[in-house]
Structure formats: C-alpha cells, structure tokens
C-alpha cells in the first residue's frame, strides 16, 4: 500500500507565506514530517500584510488564519520563526541545514499580550508584532532597546529575558522547497519618483498598511502629511518594474492590487478622485477583468495609459506634482495629487540571501529560482519561482509538495 506514513524522510520549506503554508499542510497531511522556517516572527508572509484581497474583496486574514492555525496545531509540522538559513551542506544524499534562530526577547509562548511592557517602555522599543499575529504577542526591537529592564520587572508571566541569544539548529532533510516570496525593493535609485521627498509618496504595501481597517487609521483614508483627507490619489504602475534599470520583469500582481486599492478608497470615500497610471492593465485570471471593468466604470476611477516621467513635491509642500504623457491621447500634462502610491517594486527575497554568499538555490538573471539547474533548486513555489498571486502561489506550493514526495519514492 501507499507510503502514507513515512518516518524516514523530512522536508524543509523555506518561507511561511501562503505557498509555504499550503505546501507544509499538504506534506503533513499525507504523512510527511515538515520543518517550516520563516525569517519573520510570525507566519503569513506578505498576504498577512494585506487588508483585502482581490477579486473577492474579502479580508485577507480569515482564510489565512485558519490555515496558520492548522500548521501550528499539526503534529508533523515544526515551525521555526525568526529564523534564517546560514548553511547548507550535503551528506549521504541528505541536506544538513543550519538555521539560526534569532533571540525572541519576549517568549511568544508566554506572552499574554497584556501590553504592560508596551506602556512601560520609555525607549519605544516594544511594539505589537502585527495586528493579526496568531497568537498575538509583543516584540522588542533590539536596536532601540536600552536594556533598562523595566519590562522584565513588569511582565506578569516572566516572558521577557533580555539576555537570550541566537540558537543554532541543524536539520537533516531530504529536500528543500523554496517559498521565500518577495520584498519591496527600494525605489530611491530611480530619480523620477523623488522617494523620501514627501511623506505622501509611498509604496503600495505602505499604503495598504496605512489605510488598513485593522491598522492605526481603522480604514480611514488620510494623508501622512497632516492627517487630512486627500482630494485625489495617483496610483503609479510599473514603478521600478518592466524597467531595465531595476526590475526587467512584470510583477504580475500590481495591476489588480492597484485597482483593488483604488476601489476600496472609492468605497470608503467616494469624493476622493483616484487615477491609475498604467502601461498594460494586466488582469489575467478569473473575474479579474470583470473586477476591473466593474470598478472602473462603476466608481469613476480614472485610467491613464502612461508612465509618469517625474513626481515631485510642489514648493508649498502641500501636494505632489505628477508629470506625464497620456500615450493614448498624446497629451502631456502636469497634474496635482495629494497622495502618490507606487506599485510594482517587488523583488524575490532570495536575491539578498544568495548575494550574502550563502549556498542557496540557483537563480536566473532576474532572481527567480531556476528549477532546471541543480538538485538543490528543483522545488520552488510562489513568488520565489515566478511573480504570482495568491491562487498561483498556492498551486505552485502544492505542486512542489507532490514533486518532492514522488522524487523520494522514486529514489528508493
């Protein structure tokens, strides 16, 4: 009969985003032992940072939360958060992977999220992990912490230990699935965006966090500059992407992401004008094109085909000028916006890891895992493999999961 319960083989999944979570669950449910390693302090990856997801307009958090709970409760899955891979060596057909688990000054198993340390800390080093962390806990930023020890005294459960150090763990695994996802890349090398010149020029993930219903503004659309309501918002697509100076590829998710954000702005504040500057409005997927049609027609979101050549704060610092050519009408214009959201600067996270000199998977010229090159990089899913939305990431995660299993069965 089928080897459902396989005690001899362990698998490592690097990255606890949606692709990693689903791959881990699939492997565990078919009887495999899985290690799930994530560099962040809690699982969920980038989806956890989203307020809403397209095309259903549901909260991102609920379905993710049920799957995170399943991962945390599954006896075959060992989760290592705040952990980084430091070394990979090969022995007897297995990989010995060394991970360094950062000191979690607040033990999340003991933190009851009462918030006393947060109130007590005079340096402002303690803050909540993130809105939806499961279970919720606090986090101490070691770079700000003054080691005063006030939090240790006030913690009722003794969860805080300022002297914790990083631990090294060595795992022996058969195969590694890379599901490391993406990071936002710094756009300041591109002069046209004037990054840092005005607080209301922000990237789309910053905007998502700023306007999140569970965030500090409770879904309010206000300006970072002075807390007032903006009159209009510009969403700039392909910022840093499809650009030979930075990321030559298309990040695939940003068109729909911008439409979703603009639509939620309209839903909450119908008087704010939203304008999307696009190159090709790539709405490939079930309901995506209809979603864009419905929202753009229905709520009066303006679409302009063109890539702004310059974005700069106006001398009064009140608002931001966007200089662009509408390539469908061939008209050049300068428009005044209160907020500018930059979309597209998503880079696979593995680029940075491999740059640091650790042995890692083979990457192609754009930083995505090249699964054809060698054995270590054969299995990957999500944004590490190719720009992908939630559904595609999950599919690739599952597909990588069955491929690692059948590879092991075939080897025998």
């Amino acid at each position: 009969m089928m080897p459902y319960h396989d005690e001899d083989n362990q698998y490592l999944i690097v990255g606890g985003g949606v692709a990693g979570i689903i791959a881990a669950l699939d492997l565990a449910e078919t009887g495999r032992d899985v290690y799930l390693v994530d560099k962040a302090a809690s699982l969920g990856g980038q989806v956890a940072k989203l307020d809403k997801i397209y095309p259903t307009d549901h909260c991102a958090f609920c379905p993710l939360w049920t799957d995170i709970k399943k991962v945390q409760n599954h006896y075959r899955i060992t989760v290592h958060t705040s952990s980084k891979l430091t070394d990979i060596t090969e022995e007897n057909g297995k990989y010995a992977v060394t991970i360094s688990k950062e000191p979690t000054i607040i033990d999340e198993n003991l933190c009851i999220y009462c918030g006393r340390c947060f109130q007590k800390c005079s340096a402002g080093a303690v803050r909540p992990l993130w809105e939806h962390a499961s279970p919720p806990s606090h986090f101490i930023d070691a770079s700000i912490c003054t080691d005063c020890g006030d939090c240790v005294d006030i913690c009722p459960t003794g969860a805080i230990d300022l002297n914790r150090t990083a631990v090294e763990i060595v795992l022996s695994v058969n195969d590694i699935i890379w599901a490391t996802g993406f990071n936002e890349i710094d756009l300041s090398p591109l002069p046209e965006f004037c990054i840092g010149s005005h607080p209301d020029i922000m990237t789309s993930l910053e905007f998502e966090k700023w306007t999140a219903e569970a965030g500090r503004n409770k879904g309010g659309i206000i300006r970072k500059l002075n807390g007032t309501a903006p009159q209009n918002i510009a969403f700039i697509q392909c910022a840093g992407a499809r650009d030979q100076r930075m990321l030559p590829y298309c990040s695939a998710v940003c068109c729909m992401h911008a439409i979703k954000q603009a639509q939620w702005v309209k839903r909450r504040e119908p008087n704010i004008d939203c304008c999307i500057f696009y190159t090709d409005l790539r709405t490939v997927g079930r309901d995506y094109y209809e979603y864009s049609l419905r929202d753009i027609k229905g709520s009066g979101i303006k679409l302009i085909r063109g890539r702004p050549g310059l974005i700069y704060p106006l001398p009064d610092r009140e608002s931001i000028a966007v200089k662009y050519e509408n390539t469908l009408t061939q008209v050049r214009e300068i428009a005044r916006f209160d907020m500018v959201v930059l979309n597209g600067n998503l880079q696979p996270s593995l680029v940075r890891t491999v740059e640091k000199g650790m042995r890692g998977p083979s990457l192609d010229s754009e930083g995505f895992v090249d699964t054809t090159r060698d054995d270590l990089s054969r299995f990957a899913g999500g944004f590490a493999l190719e720009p992908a939305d939630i559904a595609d990431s999950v599919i690739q995660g599952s597909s990588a999961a069955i491929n690692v299993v059948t590879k092991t069965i075939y080897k025998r």
Partner: protein
Amino acid sequence: MSDIIVLLCRCFGEIDQTIDFEIVREKLTKDRGISSLICADSLCIGRDIDTVISQIKESGGRKVLVGACSVLARGDQVVQKLVDEGIVRSDIHLVDLREGCAWIHQDNPDGARQKALNLIDMGLAFLEHKDESDDVSVKINQEVMVVGAGPAGLAAALSLARFGVTVHLLERSSTPGGMLKLISRSYPKDDATSIRLKPYLDEVEKTSRIRMYPQSKILSIKGYTGNFTVRFSSEEEELSISPGAIIIASGAMVFLPNGLFRYGEIQNVITQMELETRFKKGNVTARSAVFIQCVGARCEERPYCSTICCPASIKNAMQIKDDNRDAEVFILHRGVMTPGSVLERYYRKALSKGIQFVRFDKDSPPVIKGDEDIESVEVYDAITGLTRTIESDLVILSTPLIPNHDNHHLAEMLDLQLDQYGFFREIYPMHPLETRMDGIFICGSARWPVSSGQAISQGEAAAMKAASVLCREEVTASTFSRVPGLKFGHARVTPDSCTGCGNCMAVCPFDAIRLQRIDGKYTYVSRVNKMRCKACGNCVSVCPNGTMQMPEHNYLSVCEMIEKAFG
C-alpha cells in the same frame, strides 16, 4: 446545572481588574446553582492548568464552561489543553471575557461585569440544552478518477501513480494529449509539443497503476467523498468504478469567430488553431502576417481575458518570423497580457526579433480590406494616433477559450458550481483547486484558461489534494471538514414529525438531503447524508415544523441563549 464546571481565568489581572470575580462568583453559585467554580491566574501558561484539571476531575462534572480570552488569542489553546486531558471537545464552551468584555469596557466595570454574567449565562444555557450529532464513519476507497487526459489530467494521473494510487483516466477522444496535441509548439520554451507530451504518454503506457479509458462518456456519478460510484461508457462498453476522489481536468474549447473580422468569408483569415494545423503540416508562407487579439474576448458576451492568447500569438508570430526572416509580422492588441518574469522576457524577445505591436481601441477595431483575398488591414494605432494600413496576406484571429458544452451536465452530476461563463468555480483563492464538494478537485482549463505549463502544475497540485483525501483510510463525518475540530455536527431529522415537504432538499447547497419514501406508504421523509452535510443550517431555517434540527445548535439552546442575552 450541577454537572457544569465554570473555569474563569484572571489573566494576571487583565480580566479581574475590570470584572469583579467575587461578585460573579456569588451570583453564579447563589443564583445559578453552579457548584464548582474555579478561578485561575492563568489558564494558558503552564502552572495553573494542572491543578485546575485535577480539580475538574475531582468534582465529577462533565461539561466545562471556560471564561478566558478570545479564541483568536489563546482561548483555543486552553480548550486544546482540556481536550488533551480527556475532556470531550463538544462538552467545552469558550466565553470571551478579555478582548470582547474586560478590555473594551475598561471604563465601565459595572457594565462589563453585567456583560460577563450575560455571556456566561448564555454559555451555560448553550451547554445545558445542546445535543450531540450522531456520527458515522466511512472507509476511503484508494482510487482516483481523473476526467480528461490533457496536460492537466496526465500530470495529475502520473503524480498520483508515482505516489502509489490507482488512477482511472477517462478521455473523451480516442488518444490522450488534449488540446496540446493539436498545437505545434508550446510557449515559452518553444519546444515541439510532441516531445513535450512524450514522457507523459510513455509513462502512462508503462505504469500499471493508470487505467486509461478512451472514448469515454460519464453516465452517472453518485456518492460522496471516499465513496463515489461512477458509471461510464468507454468504447461502447459500460463500466462502473468507485473512486475515493475525483479530479476534473476536462479542458476547454476554442471560440470560433464566425462572422467576426470576415472570418469564413475570406480564405486567409484564419484562427490561431488553423494556423497551428498549418504549422504541423509545415506550409505557412506569409510575406506579411497580422495577428488580431481579443477576437470575441473582453467584449460584451465574454467580458474576460482568456490568459493564453497573447503569449500564443507571440509564439506563432516568432515562428513565422523564424521561418521567413523577411516576413513582416504585426500583433494588433488591446494591451499585451504577459504578466510575470518568463512571459515578459518572452515579450521582449519578440520585440527584439522585430515583431511589431500595434495597440488599438476596443471602439475602433481593425478593418480587413479586400474582396476575395486580403489586401490590407486598416487599424487606428492608439499610441501614435494615426491610422495605419498594413499590407498583409494572412490574418490570424486570436480567440479565447470557452467552457466545454457538457460542463453543465458534469456540474449537475457532481453538484459543483460553475461561474457565469460555464467554467468550474473554486471555493476561494486560498484553495484554488478545491470545490465546495469535498473530494472533488478542478484543474487546468476546465477551471480557467491556462497555458500547458500552468495546467501541468495545477494537475500536480490537484493530485496532492486528492492524495491528502485518500491518506486517511477511514474518516468520520464529524472530523471531516476543512478546519478540523470546527465542524458543528450535522443536521438531524425526526422521522415521526417530518411531513416530507422537501423544503430542506430545495435549499441544501451541498446536495446532502434526499426524500425517501416510507415503505408501503405514499409519504416521504427527508434523510440527511452526514458526510455531505456541512452544518450550514439552511435546512433548519426553512423547516416549517422544527423537525430538522442542528443538534449542537437546536431551537432550545439558541432560544435560551437569546433569552439570557436580552430577556
């Protein structure tokens, strides 16, 4: 209420700073007759839970009401600890006294205490009156049926066979390969499809675990997860199988642009598929070829983007260019849909080869000039704002994929949802291949138009999902849910009072209710299939006389809870 134990967590003062536990204790023991009430400093962190559990065991009570933090914080951990100690999950009820009570009413301790008491009263009423669903367990048949032997179906069947599962692979036509075998090369690697398909076909031939049924037609599907019964005909022979899971990979069809862009009227206006056939025969000679995108897509009737047409046109344009370097090749598009890294690179490659891309507006589509042969194509170039006349001798219309006609039939048999066009619909983006029926998975272009590469990874992913259904050799109805431990049981009928009106059958979204005739009489009673029931409660709300009940949330317990909250 003597058998209910109330556990209250102080949470190191987080709860009892606001809610005075002494008053709560007095009210509960005096007015509600609670004999055992235990207050602990913290239920989630080590120290107290052991003493609490020994106290519970001493008191002899059976049901436990926990007043602690929200299930989103550590409430579920507390419940899990109690379950680990041998208390039945359905006898535990969690009341959120921290996030939903003490914290948000910090400025009003009296109100918070009253709310806490109301919440506890509701919990007590719930625990007292709730009933329990009777369970049923079934064995999972260790076989999978895959419908369709295209790239998705082949990948699914092969992955399962390698995994060790017996697969029944049903194919409508006489040979496997699906739409891929009609195509000359596949993007983005530009490899011949025959070479691409070969390893799959070879392995299907070789392995004994895959049983291939060509020319098959499904006649009926009955049953539920783990125990489907499928009757089908293959090569005019009628067969029956009992798979434990079903994977739908039946693919899609290509839209024929009859009447659009003078298709059928001028000889050299052809579809993408006809071009593929010409490539296979090796007789494509064109001085100048024009591809027109979005023919019959992103329009009123089919307002969707079919995903694969832009890369397919780019692939074929490059092939024409490769065959004849002097050929002029134009792609007239409404936005080039090549998302991601691989396809964007593919698009750049086409640009560097000299393929010309012209963007047109939806409202001013290209016009084909000429009487019997194509003379030219006139198009308003939206980027330059000029009307261009392109001399051409071959026009290729890129048409979208449309759902198979028999999807409705299949969906009806399996009780699956189709989207507004007729493609199979998934339950949620986080679970993109799962349908609302457990044990039935969708992949490939039957779900949504995809390239062959994506179809293969979807097939593999669907195989993984099917394997995770099969890996539990025996399941019980109560544990069979996507979120283990969170199913609320299943609906129950009292046959004596059921009038057989059929309202419940009509509203059940999971096809779990059937009317059954009583032996020797002309009356009917409804019957619930416990494996199919998802405890949504629709049937309960339409039952005219309260015969249909959710035992865990029956009328009595719900009414009592409302009474306690507002009475």
